[in-house]
């Protein structure tokens, strides 16, 4: 055993500590279980301490991080559960199945809490789209998300998509799911009650995703090692759909004590986590697990076969549980029971094959990693954008900008997702946040995700604050009030001090911004080791945000709604081209300081927009972010096919005015007669604003810089992604 641990990714200290915990050397099964459960992915051993910085409690938080998903009270007896996850590495290996099983995993995290999943969100990052492999990955990933999510009948209503060469070999496929439930229906992933049955529901177990631990097999089965190869996980959305319905029915019928999805580290993880949360022990009869092929106990315990759930039920309810599962056409087998004490004990045809303390598996080691500011930062930050030479034709520049892979329409993607099913989507993808109505109430939810890796690369603390602020603006522009955050933190190898510094700074930015905007972080995920040949991706925290719309008729879209409205900019434009899409796309530069953000100003501008919408003064609103004001204005025009006449005076260069990515800005429309009220509002909150012009016609004119036919611009913007990808 001793020589094996390293191949399994354990350090010698970790191995020693396992021996100490057990008072002996672990056997093969135990070693396999510890190696998975103590992996970074399952144990958060590098990130745990840093994540403590995040604000997680507020009055409306029902359940914070630590469970399968965070739960937030939205009033009226309803709560929402949501979480974001990464499926980066599986998607790099097999884009369709990797992305598909990513959706499968995150959806299980939600219904396992008793919530019905009502939407998914898919933040994506890929390499340079001129590379054929990138295009293959994009198409595969999008088809995988569509293939799985559409079959489940869960609308994918939002997402984002960035291209940068740093993601070439290591694309990011993050997925978020949100579910809704009555607050009284919440169930936890906990095992309690000695004697209660442990039931495995769903797909048979195969050698899926056993990965590194397969060395345990090849040690003994060299001649058969090819057959013992782990399999790439293949998604089975049909079974997952049945699982959703069966589990929700079980919960509704009050038949379960606890419910837990199976994800990474499979049965080992589900059993040890539920037992640990319930402060009990558990006995597992590994031979009872329904198999797809012949497998050894260690393989069964760590297999990551998809579409499986672990339920805990009182003995007298077991028959009913099995009946419900069978009616839905699902396998369901009692594989063990809750026992006294604190050990997880496994049997294989009566013979004991593992016996470990539950908590030692469920809570791996904790590390305080070294952090060191990376050397590249001084260099990239010292770049001065005012030294670049601007192309002079702004009209052409704006057209070029809206056809950039990072700014063009995402229609090609979201049309492949069923974004309407469940009859709740009332602001479709393509606006700022998506808006979902809550049937039976007058309320709605706004959902978005954001995370500009370039900003975070250039300044992890500031860049992450911006991600939070931008997400909040998306929510607000859609008529919502930000409620809570989930996140997916995608970074390189945390054992490298420079990476760990990025991570720490980024989490500090997330924490500070969340506190400033008074939002809790209720769930999330950390994905480390996003590196290829020692080259890390841009540090990429992705923020998922949920907002509440008190009255659904207060939802707003970005589209200019009619002619003859005033176009007003809340906030102010500075000369801030550092880290901008303009620098990246037009000049091929990723450098400079990202735009500054003053959280106090941000808060006041946010409050102004919220109040303006609530009082019906603001008729449309659009967050101004990547691509700057020029792009934002054109997007408002294209969304409603209505032009605008913009006249402004400014000390900025036209290109700066158009493409600077200054924070805390909204482009809004108001009736001329209501301008006074907007003025009052702005003065009261001491925020800068300016009237840019008015809507109307079918052209966007900006000073003598820009004069574009909206319909023609639309064609360019709308078709760009499909062209780029074909």
């Amino acid at each position, binding site marked *: 055993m001793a020589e094996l641990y390293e191949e399994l990714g354990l350090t010698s200290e970790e191995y020693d500590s396992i021996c100490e915990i057990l008072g002996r050397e672990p056997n093969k099964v135990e070693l396999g279980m510890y190696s998975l459960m103590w992996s970074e992915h399952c144990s958060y051993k590098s990130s745990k301490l840093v994540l403590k910085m995040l604000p997680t409690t507020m009055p409306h938080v029902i359940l914070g991080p630590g469970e399968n998903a965070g739960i937030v009270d939205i009033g009226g007896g309803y709560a929402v559960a949501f979480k974001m996850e990464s499926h980066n590495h599986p998607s790099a*290996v*097999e884009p369709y*199945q990797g992305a598909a099983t990513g959706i499968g995993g995150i959806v299980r995290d939600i219904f396992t809490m008793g919530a019905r999943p009502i939407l998914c969100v898919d933040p994506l990052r890929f390499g340079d789209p001129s590379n054929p492999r990138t295009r293959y990955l994009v198409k595969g990933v999008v088809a995988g998300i569509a293939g799985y999510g559409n079959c489940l009948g869960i609308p994918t209503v939002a997402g984002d998509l960035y291209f940068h060469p740093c993601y070439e070999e290591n694309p990011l496929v993050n997925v978020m799911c949100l579910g809704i439930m009555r607050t009284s229906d919440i169930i936890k992933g906990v095992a309690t009650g000695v004697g209660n049955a442990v039931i495995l529901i769903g*797909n048979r177990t*195969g*050698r*899926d995703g056993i990965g590194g631990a397969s060395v345990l097999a090849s040690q003994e089965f060299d001649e058969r090692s090819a*057959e013992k*190869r782990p*399999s*790439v*996980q*293949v*998604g*089975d959305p*049909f*079974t997952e759909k049945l699982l959703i319905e069966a589990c929700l029915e079980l919960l509704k019928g009050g038949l379960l004590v606890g419910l837990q999805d199976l994800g990474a580290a499979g049965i080992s993880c589900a059993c040890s986590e539920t037992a640990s949360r319930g402060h009990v022990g558990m006995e597992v009869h590994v031979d009872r697990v329904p198999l*797809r*092929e012949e497998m050894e106990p260690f393989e069964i315990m760590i297999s990551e*076969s*998809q579409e499986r759930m672990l339920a805990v039920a009182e003995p007298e309810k077991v028959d009913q549980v099995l009946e419900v599962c069978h009616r839905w*056409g699902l396998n369901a087998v009692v594989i063990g029971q809750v026992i006294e004490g604190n050990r997880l004990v496994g049997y294989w045809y009566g013979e004991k094959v593992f016996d470990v303390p539950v908590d030692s598996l469920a809570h791996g080691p904790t590390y305080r990693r070294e952090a060191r500011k990376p050397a590249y930062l001084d260099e990239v930050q010292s770049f001065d954008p005012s030294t670049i030479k601007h192309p002079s034709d702004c009209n052409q520049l704006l057209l070029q900008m809206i056809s950039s892979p990072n700014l063009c329409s995402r229609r090609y993607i979201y049309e492949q997702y069923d974004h309407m099913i469940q009859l709740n989507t009332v602001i479709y993808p393509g606006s700022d946040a998506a808006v979902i109505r809550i049937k039976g109430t007058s309320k709605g939810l706004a959902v978005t995700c954001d995370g500009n890796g370039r900003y975070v690369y250039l300044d992890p603390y500031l860049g992450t604050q911006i991600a939070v602020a931008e997400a909040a603006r998306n929510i607000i522009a859609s008529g919502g009030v930000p409620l809570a955050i989930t996140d997916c933190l995608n970074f390189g190898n945390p054992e490298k001090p420079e990476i760990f510094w990025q991570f720490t700074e980024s989490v500090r930015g997330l924490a500070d911004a969340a506190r400033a905007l008074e939002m809790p972080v209720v769930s999330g995920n950390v994905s480390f080791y996003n590196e290829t040949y020692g080259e890390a991706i841009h540090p990429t925290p992705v923020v998922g945000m949920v907002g509440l719309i008190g009255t659904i008729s207060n939802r707003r879209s970005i589209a200019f709604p009619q002619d003859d409205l005033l176009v007003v900019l809340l906030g102010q434009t500075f000369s801030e081209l550092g880290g901008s899409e303009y620098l990246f796309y037009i000049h091929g530069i990723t450098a400079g300081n990202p735009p500054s953000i003053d959280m106090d100003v941000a808060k006041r501008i946010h409050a102004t927009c919220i109040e303006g919408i609530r009082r019906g003064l603001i008729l449309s609103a659009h967050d101004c972010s990547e691509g700057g004001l020029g792009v934002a204005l054109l997007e408002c025009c294209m969304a409603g096919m209505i032009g605008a006449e913009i006249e402004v005076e400014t000390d900025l260069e036209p290109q700066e005015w158009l493409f600077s990515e200054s924070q805390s800005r909204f482009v809004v429309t108001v009736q001329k007669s209501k301008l006074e009220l907007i003025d009052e509002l702005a003065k009261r909150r001491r925020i800068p604003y300016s009237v840019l012009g008015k809507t109307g016609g079918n052209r966007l004119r900006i000073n003598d810089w820009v004069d574009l036919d909206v319909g023609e611009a639309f064609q360019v913007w709308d078709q760009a992604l499909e062209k780029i990808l074909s």
Partner: protein
Amino acid sequence: MEENSEQVRYAVYITPKRGVLDPQGQAALQALKALGYGEVDDVRIGKYIILSLKGDGAKEERVREMCEKLLANPIIEDYEVSME
């Protein structure tokens, strides 16, 4: 499309790799059992591709290449090629 004397046809058989989940096959298996075909033990569903190639000469190498590059997904599928 038109068939000429110089056309050769290859058949490509693509199957899910051993051990890889085959939800399609499983669904068909269950359906067949429900229809009374209890004798069916297992169903695996793959693809059957017929390629018509112009000209003569040994083509099999090229067809294998096409499989590797496009037609099959070697990560989860096996394939075989035969001349018709």
